[in-house]
């Protein structure tokens, strides 16, 4: 079945069964492998993408529900959030890096809705993203730093 999706601002047609989770459409059908499989149950956040601007677990979203919605992935995050990506690199946040796409997508959605998050705001917004390497203290620092840069430099998108 051909499904019409809007991914990273482009209209794409995908030949996949409607029950296929968005995660696997992105990875296997569209070659967008930045979005990761971590648990398949919505517990870990490695598969986080934006659907109409909201951080969403793509492993839990049947692709049939997504026609007409704007899907954005890690591959184009830097265009919208250059300061966030830069602070992530500058702070050496990633260790193994596998969860980091999801962490960044959750962080970006947080900053979109809350330009100056507190530690509590960060903990609440990022609680769905597990990092087994334990980069959490740097994630907090990088989000604060990106928020500060956005405040100084204006809109980061």
């Amino acid at each position, binding site marked *: 079945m051909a499904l019409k999706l809007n991914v990273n601002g482009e209209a794409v047609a995908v030949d996949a*069964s409607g029950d296929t989770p968005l995660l696997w459409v992105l990875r296997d059908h569209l070659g967008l492998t930045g979005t990761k499989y*971590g648990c398949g149950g919505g517990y870990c956040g490695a598969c986080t993408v934006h659907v109409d601007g909201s951080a969403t677990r793509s492993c839990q979203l049947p692709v049939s529900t997504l026609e007409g919605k704007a899907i954005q992935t890690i591959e184009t995050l830097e265009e919208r959030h250059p300061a966030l990506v830069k602070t992530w690199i500058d702070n050496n946040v990633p260790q193994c890096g596998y969860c980091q796409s999801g962490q960044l997508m959750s962080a970006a959605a947080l900053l979109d809705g809350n330009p100056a998050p507190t530690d509590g705001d960060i903990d609440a917004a990022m609680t769905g993203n597990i990092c*087994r390497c334990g980069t959490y203290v740097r994630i907090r620092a990088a989000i604060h730093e990106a928020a500060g840069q956005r405040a100084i430099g204006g809109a980061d998108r």
Partner: protein
Amino acid sequence: MNAITNLSPSISRRHFLGASGVLVLGASLPARKVLGQSSLATTFEPNLFLALDGDGGVHVTVHRSEMGQGIRTALAQVVADELEADWSRVEVVQAQGDAKYGDQNTDGSRSITLNYDRLRTAGATARLMLRQAAAKRWGVDVATVTATNHEVVHAGSGRRLGYGDLASEAASLPVPAKAPLKKNGEHRYIGKPVTHVDSGNIARGKGTFGADFSLPNMATAVVVRCPWLGGGVKSIANKPTDEPGLVAIETLYPAPSAGPVFTPLGGVAVVADDTWTAMRIAGGLDIEWTGSPTQSFDSDELRKSLRDAVASPGTAVPGSEKGDVDAVFAAGGTELSATYETPFLSHAPMEPPVAVADVSDGRCVVHAPLQDPQSARPMIAAQAGLSPDKVEVTPTLLGGAFGRKSKPDFALEAVELSKRLKRPVRVQWLREDDIRHDYFHAASAQYHRAVIDGEGHPTAWLQRSAFPSITTVFAAQAEQPAPWELEMGFSNLPYTVENQRMESAGIRPGVRVGWLRSVCNIFHAFSANVFADEMAAAVGRDPIEHRLSLIPESGKLKQPGQPAPPGHELDFARLRHVIERVRKLSDWDTPRPQGTGLGFAVHHSFRSYVATVLEATVTNGRPSVSNAYVVLDCGTYVNPDTCVAQMEGAVVFGLSLSLYGDIAMKDGAVVQSNFHDYPMLRIGETPATTVELVPAQGRLPAGVGEPGVPPVAPALSNALFAATGTRHRTLPIRA
């Protein structure tokens, strides 16, 4: 060579011109293959680890696997430092598994320890040859030219040449037997906080992990495995035949139920055009399995056996006995005794095991997140029915490993399926597969008994440890813990005790056990540090003051069994130093509010010294850690920021296992399945973490990836005792 390259972030947008004139773009093209096809005249490759091309591009081959410990960056720093290379011109090439590199087994926190000197020499040799090439061209004495930041300079005349301009002449020179190394203080990158070479790709979703590698015409397999070890497929009640996207359903042979168990577990492989189709069909299969001796395995029964084992005499550790423990116990006095318990753990790296294999045209190519591509190579060759020289094994980035990916069983599954189906196959383990079919960190029990004097000093100390040995995976008859397992924090106890005995016991488990980040140090450091805290509490002494009084001022530990390699003996002064530093760092002597406790632990492992203080409370019945203070002495360090990051991560890893880690088996099957019932620490539970790195440049480099983990659980237990008066002797801690 046909390795995948990942450009460092600083040059990720630079298009570099390969020596063949082919423009190589981006992060994941086989640049070295392009170079390999070109005339070698313009490429200078004085050794296995370094190549310089005519345009000045430096390619450092890293033969260890990257799993978050920053090794691709650190090893490149070492080579680039001695080469005096411009870091922005350095590209990292991932080595395939090949005996020519020497040890490639990325475990034991020893990549820097093993390779520091040889990679410095690799860089220094090339630097000397570039100086020789310039001196020859200019007709001057080599002693009058220097190499600095990608240029050779003749100070007398002011002449200078870039490294690229010298590549072909350097390539024509004989490789010198010796090259001078830099002195401390001359380092450009060693000891400096260089940003990781893969961070840019990762932050842009462009890092290539196991599942991100693909080949044309590749199919994806999901394997349904028997819940118990050694079971085979008896029947499939509802085997589908012509579902859209289904490629094949293949039965894999079961692994033996008792070691050696490095081979695949067997099961039913559902091979499909895409992952979801394979997952969906695999999830619906109704499979009947054959029985095996492990079908009745119950972890509660094993743990009771471990408790029983440490309640009676075990096998004495050779050379561990000092004085007469029994006589002191018989004489009486203030006696303490306690039993400690820890459960099985699953590694649960964020990337579940995954591998891509292509067996075709008499060759086999594997791309997978493997910690030891070299030892995997002959096993892959055997599975493919080929000689090892027909096999190429290339590690991708490892999305975490923690010891799990030192076994290539998942790659062997992909090889077997590719061989049968005559097309490339990716095997994708699901999270449930990962948690249930791991090489588990062993459950354990320890018993400590001591008679203490008025200062809390043990006049006699008996300790026992019982756990299923990792050697049970290697040999069907193995049962007793190996000396190297006991040397992980048990037989090398660093405290002064006149009368001492150590005993161990083993047991064969009904599951595969393996090494998990810091291995036996986890339970040995836990019991020894909590028991020491109990000694201090029994006499009302400050735990740090008390601990320091148990450690000699100077000298080296003489441990039972094999002595440590020269320079890596446990040095009492260094152990004391990290304790004294963490006391200061944590502001230990300043009282905390009622209900808040400070807990201390120290441990020497992987040749490094780590002291940790945690500040904890119990809130709504749950332990909560607000601050962590860690001091690390790892000898010479290459990238201090990586060292700090590894300690930060170790606190999180250690708290996950302290608060949540608990794998149980019933009827041979693992009870837990995913992160809802095998939880990990999350960001809101993560303490503010302060790390101090002991300046020790010039000492032998020691481990960093693992030694931060062992002190965490005992520091938490001790902090909760300080906060609440309740002792926690079993992990995970449930307040």
